[in-house]
């Protein structure tokens, strides 16, 4: 990649012949506490190779990469594309594979600490919203009707109480006398009619 080369003398590898002036991809740095501190892992596009990432990290970030290892992670088969409103059954879809590269650097690097307090991101509200949304989406699942409802237990308890004689059945309807027309004394003029 022909960019503003920081220090030609400091380069520890031979420059390749592939000139990339305007790279249009993103690298995602991953938190890898299981790796030694002089290792860093990235999610990279599938067409990036080891020489590319060594060149890229040196020229864009000034990171000296000693060695690279690469891994393509195939994704699970899913039903229908992600984001479809009603996922069609048996319309199989496999998301694009994810390529990860782990580089060994000359200097160690440790990620900053994870935040303790998530109030800036409104975590509680976010989780509650996600939970209610999940509950709402359950209604559209095919086995929703077969599942017992939340009131089922309560109904069974009430029935048991009636059968055992603990409670007496009583109609909820209450006799309140003959119907009475209200507001009989209000005058009805022609103009006030709608």
């Amino acid at each position, binding site marked *: 990649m022909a*960019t*503003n080369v920081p220090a030609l003398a400091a380069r520890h590898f031979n420059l390749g012949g592939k000139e990339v*002036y*305007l*790279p*249009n991809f*993103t*690298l*995602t*740095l*991953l*938190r890898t*506490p299981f790796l030694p*501190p002089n290792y*860093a892992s990235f*999610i990279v596009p599938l067409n990036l190779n080891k020489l590319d990432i060594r060149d890229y*990290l040196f020229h*864009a*970030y*000034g*990171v000296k990469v000693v060695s690279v290892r690469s891994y393509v992670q195939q994704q699970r088969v899913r039903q229908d594309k992600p984001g479809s409103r009603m996922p069609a059954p048996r319309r199989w879809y496999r998301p694009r594979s994810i390529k990860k590269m782990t580089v060994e*650097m000359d*200097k*160690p*690097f*440790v*990620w*900053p*600490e*994870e*935040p303790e307090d*998530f109030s*800036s*991101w*409104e*975590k509680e*509200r*976010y*989780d509650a919203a996600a939970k209610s949304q999940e509950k709402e989406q359950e209604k559209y699942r095919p086995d929703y009707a077969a599942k017992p409802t939340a009131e089922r237990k309560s109904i069974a308890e009430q029935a048991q109480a009636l059968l055992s004689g603990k409670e007496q059945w009583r109609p909820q309807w209450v006799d309140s006398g003959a119907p009475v027309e209200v507001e009989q004394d209000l005058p009805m003029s022609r103009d006030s009619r709608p």
Partner: protein
Amino acid sequence: MSISSVGRWARSSRSSYILETPPTFLVPSLWKSAPAARNFSTSPSRSLPRDYNRNRGVSAIRGTGPRQPLSVSKEPLPEPVLDSKLRSKVQVDENHGLWGFFNKQRTTLSTPEDEYSHGRSWSVEELRSKSWEDLHSLWWVCVKERNRIATETFERNRLKAGYGDFEASDRDTTVRRTQRAVKHVLTERWYAWEAARKLAKTDEEIDLNSPGQIYLPRDFEEDVPEEEELRDVGSKEPTTTKERRDADKVTV
């Protein structure tokens, strides 16, 4: 004639050695130099052991210990620290390049407020006046910013931190609009260059194949105004300031 037959012939003729001397061409074969005596023995040589087994003769049953010192010391082994919080912290370089994947405060995540506080993208009109170096460095600023946003988005989803996806994607869109403007300007320049190149092909004064100077202007005669015209113009209009002032006075 083989050597053995020559020897046999020499032995058989030893009695009449003086009488019959061998011919001169057989002299080098009959001359005996002292051969290097090689000891032949069926017992193995003492310089090397029987085989290369270093543990030959070492027996646990007979109590014969190892013949070479082992790398074992009496010091107790260090115990591994399983709790990561108790371990000594790694000194990270302040100027490490991977800090470029983080925000200015160098925290794991930016708050949605910080993420949303950004301006608009660069417009094409603003970028048209910029040089290639400016555009190129702006592109790389955009690339690094997108890397940071991708890293934080992944980390936010991993931690299930909460809201912030919208703000990050909004910022990402702004950055990508700037990148689109950069490419727009460069494409415009390329078309301008291409049009100029095509024009230069038809222009007679430009030779694109010449090794040296490309633009070779021809000698042209300047349009010399005729003397009569000059005279007329001079008579009609005032040329100097004084004359102009006089003319103004007349009109006033």
